[in-house]
């Protein structure tokens, strides 16, 4: 639908920010403008690293069992014993947020790999072979993209009946077009380069040209897309769980925590703040990191 938009806005949801921070032509300005995204990227990397550490070391860091119910102490505010308070069943909110990082990272990494594994080869084939292959694959991608935002994930999760597999599939399918379109556009650019013609003249097979010549040149932009899609995946997972279509209780999932507390908003506002903050910060971190990586790998801004 939106194949040739102006270069700095991308068509795929909040995970995909389309910033062009470094554009000022005056030398003095340019220095400052480049330095700023780098600092932001470092901040992003730090936030992501913190999240990863939480996910990996969850059992060590959490002071309580995230599943231990203690109804007597339910819906308490922050205290020395429970820094982030307790939830509707008296479980320690901080411990659940720490374990929630594990859930979030597992799902986003898994789903993004799944989406990339399907989308990247499709885009490579589409860009390299063109014609009917291209038309078929791209119409299929258009069809996936005809479902705005969360709609496809919601519809898939609802049909597949919830549970881990349906979350993975719902997220992965909705990210496939990002990779396919990106891999296609990079392939088209690379295909026109002399080194590809040279490889063809030398008699390299299509397969070998694709995977030995073109794929290595796609890695930079793809890394950027993957990073930004982690943010996208986290948003979808938490939204699905919030709507009751993702993880089911008692899983420690940030989106689900917000779902569980929303009827008690008035009683215990704290419980609505911390899990949301965790989701926000993680997405924020991945966005900043992705923008920074784009400035490094992809200065010309490939169009998604």
């Amino acid at each position: 639908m939106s194949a040739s938009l102006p270069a700095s806005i991308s068509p795929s949801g909040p995970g995909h920010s389309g910033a062009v921070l470094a554009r000022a032509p005056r030398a003095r300005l340019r220095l400052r403008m480049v330095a700023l995204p780098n600092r932001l990227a470092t901040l992003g990397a730090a936030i992501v690293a913190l999240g990863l550490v939480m996910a990996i070391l969850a059992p060590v860091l959490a002071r309580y069992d995230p599943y231990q119910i203690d109804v007597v102490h339910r819906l308490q505010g922050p205290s020395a014993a429970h820094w982030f308070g307790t939830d509707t069943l008296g479980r320690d909110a901080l411990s659940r947020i720490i374990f929630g990082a594990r859930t979030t990272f597992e799902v986003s990494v898994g789903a993004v790999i799944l989406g990339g594994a399907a989308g990247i080869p499709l885009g490579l084939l589409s860009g390299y072979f063109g014609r009917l292959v291209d038309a078929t694959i791209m119409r299929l991608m258009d069809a996936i993209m005809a479902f705005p935002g969360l709609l496809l994930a919601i519809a898939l999760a609802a049909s597949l009946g919830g549970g881990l597999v349906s979350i993975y599939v719902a997220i992965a399918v909705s990210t496939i077009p990002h990779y396919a379109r990106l891999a296609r556009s990079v392939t088209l650019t690379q295909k026109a380069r002399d080194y590809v013609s040279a490889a063809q003249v030398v008699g390299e097979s299509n397969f070998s040209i694709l995977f030995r010549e073109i794929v290595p040149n796609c890695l930079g932009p793809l890394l950027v897309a993957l990073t930004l899609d982690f943010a996208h995946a986290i948003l979808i997972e938490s939204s699905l769980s919030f709507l009751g279509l993702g993880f089911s209780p008692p899983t420690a999932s940030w989106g689900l925590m917000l779902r569980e507390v929303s009827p008690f908003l008035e009683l215990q506002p704290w419980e609505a703040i911390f899990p949301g903050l965790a989701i926000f910060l993680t997405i924020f971190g991945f966005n900043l990191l992705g923008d920074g990586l784009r400035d490094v790998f992809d200065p010309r801004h490939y169009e998604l």
Partner: protein
Amino acid sequence: MTLARYIGGRLLQLIPVLFLVSVGVFLLVQIIPGDPVAIMLGVSPDSAGFNKDQYDTLRHELGFDQPLYERYLSWAGRIVHGDFGVSLKSRRPVADLLFERYPATIYLTIVALLVSLAIAVPIGVFAAVRQNTIFDYLGMTFSLVGLAMPGFWLALLLILLFSLKLGWFPAIGYAAPLAQPVDFLKHVAMPAIVLGTSFAAQLARYLRAETIEQLHQDYVRSARAWGLPPRTVIFKHAVRNSLISVVTVAGLHTARLLGGTPIVESIFGWPGVASLLLDSIYARDYPTVQASVLILALTYVTLNLVVDVVYHLLDPRIRLA
């Protein structure tokens, strides 16, 4: 490429997409694990409350006694004639439900678009004009925060602050915009802000970059050299030009606002198509699920196409491939 050919080409391209979308929506019900008919009835064939007649009737009604392609063809045939089947929950025609719910979704989307423009334009322009000042940093911080803000969390925070603490806006509900305009505005304010925020964040970033680029163009330098006051140069020339491209981008992406409606409508009890979708999912009312997914996707595709074609009409320089 002539205009007629362009529009014709776009419409032709749309045919396979619409076909694939309809297949996808049709398959939604086919991929339900287990026996969809039993799931819709809420009883398994070997449980006590199982009614064989009811089961067979529904099975026939949904066409599960036919082969897959025949089922698709008869389903698609009925859809084309505006027959979306009967809701399993309310036993009313799904088309009627969609007809009732559709306007609310459209109103919400329009207000959200206005909200995002109202937020993005001042922030984007001001950030560009005062580049590298505190205003710029604040504006771009808003943008980064807005992009990372999950809609449902923002919604909960707004409800906490403006409904529960301050009591300014109702947390849920709806009023018709023409019959009760004041009530409508009160009810639509928070949903529209939630729906519009991430779009506003993207637009502000884009507008800032675009205005900065315009400010460095030759014509701006010439205007300055002519001795025009800086204010005139900035607002009458640079900003005006960057606004044109922003309106283009905003238009081309307006349809995307629809993607946020399921979350927003369900939290704020907004009676639109997206909340109908979620209610039907919870009630396992699959005919209604299919119809509302289809309607939202069709609206999205149509809106994209119309905006595309309109821009093509308005500005012949935009040559969309």
